[in-house]
């Protein structure tokens, strides 16, 4: 469903992504793992249009975000970019909830303002999603009144409320203590059970092993090894073994 091919990306001449290709099928959970600075967040940010690639091809379903032919990179027009953006959801490490809006406003504002949905139907769906992430009683609260784990669950709910076809997570639990991490991972796990398509950058190895259908191990902007969890967790590759063993 989502394909990124031969992605190159550098910042100020410093190469970060060095010819990466990944593919995510519908209903699949793909975990991106690797040491800090390996480029996994950058890859995710290129896919979710927060960064531009220097070269490569990205497609979602039938829509082309960008393609490179004969060494020339071409991004599609604004309308297509926006269409692709709306088909994807994103969850950040730092939640990035809107502090001046209550939980329910955080969830319905984009559906109402961006998708021109009626307030009533957006609210109905938002309440159902809040129930799913276990925060029905927090609808009227403001983000500062919530714990980090609750804020991150609201952020997931906010992304879900836009009904994306694929959900991207950029180290969703890296700012949380082990207990709060558990509650956020629980929500992601339940989404996986419903066959939500997800691309997750994570440092939680056991989570990746248990939840992901496919794991991509990156280092230095390149893929070191990729495959099913069992393959990576019993890898012959010495680098993979060392990284997984350490974490």
């Amino acid at each position, binding site marked *: 469903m989502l394909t990124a091919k031969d992605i190159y990306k550098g910042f100020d001449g410093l190469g970060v992504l060095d010819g990466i290709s990944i593919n995510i099928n519908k209903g699949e959970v793909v975990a991106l793992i690797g040491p800090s600075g390996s480029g996994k967040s950058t890859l995710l940010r290129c896919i979710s249009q927060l960064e531009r690639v220097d070269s490569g091809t990205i497609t979602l379903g039938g829509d082309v975000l960008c393609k490179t032919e004969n060494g020339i990179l071409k991004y599609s027009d604004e309308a297509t970019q926006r269409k692709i953006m709306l088909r*994807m959801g*994103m969850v950040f490490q730092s939640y*990035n909830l809107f502090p*001046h809006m209550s939980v329910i406003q955080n969830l319905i504002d*984009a559906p109402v*303002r*961006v998708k021109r949905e009626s307030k009533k139907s957006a609210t109905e769906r938002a309440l159902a999603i809040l129930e799913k992430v276990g925060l029905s009683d927090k609808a009227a609260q*403001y983000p500062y009144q919530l714990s980090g784990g609750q804020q991150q669950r609201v952020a997931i709910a906010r*992304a879900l409320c*836009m009904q994306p076809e694929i959900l991207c997570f950029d180290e969703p639990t890296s700012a949380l203590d082990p207990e709060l991490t558990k509650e956020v991972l629980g929500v992601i796990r339940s989404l996986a059970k419903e066959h939500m398509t997800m691309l997750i950058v994570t440092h939680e190895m056991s989570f990746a092993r248990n939840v992901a259908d496919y794991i991509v191990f990156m280092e230095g902007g390149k893929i070191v090894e990729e495959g099913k969890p069992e393959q990576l967790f019993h890898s012959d590759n010495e680098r993979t073994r060392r990284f997984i063993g350490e974490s």
Partner: protein
Amino acid sequence: MTIKFFNDSERLGRLVSLMLSGAGVTLSIFFLTLLFAIPLGMLVAQGRMSKRLPVRAPVSFYIYIMRSTPLMLQLMFIYFLLPMILPFRIDRFVAVVFAFSINYAAYFAEIFRSGITSIPLGQYEAAKVLGYTKVQTFFRIILPQVIKRVLLPMANEVITLIKDTALASTVAVVELMTIAKKQVSSSSSIEPYFVAIIMYLILNGIAEQLCKFAEKKLNYYR
């Protein structure tokens, strides 16, 4: 000091009502300046933060001029010198409001800029991935948070502005300070100054309460 008003209630009443009319003019200058300087300051802040040098450089220069020369001098320049270049005369009240607006817009712009740059990048990114347009992002997500952050420095400016309106007396706009000065010299008593002090205190007392109220109103989130 000769007491000429405070022991003559009828005369004092006339003085107070005369000065109240001056306070009315003071308030008009004040409100009109805010009305023009706030949106102008917003535009100037955007220009100051522009990625394009041909926009940013002249805007920076404008801010430099406005903040680095005395407001009194700017006022005189606009009232006395501009008519020598322009083919028409400028009404003194209009000149005052114009001078105050462009001067305060420069200060407001820097306050807005500090407010806008203090909003975490993540807010823009979250808005972007949710599909908000740039305009929606600014008005729905960024501006409400900026307002809260600039409230305290803006309260400072508002209070300064009420006092700065007294500069309008340098081009003989009949506001509170002008009347006070005139009454002092015609009566050779300094009592009108006391009345002026009380009136400025009352005006700023109200302004301060309004700012406190706004602060409380915006306290529903952190």
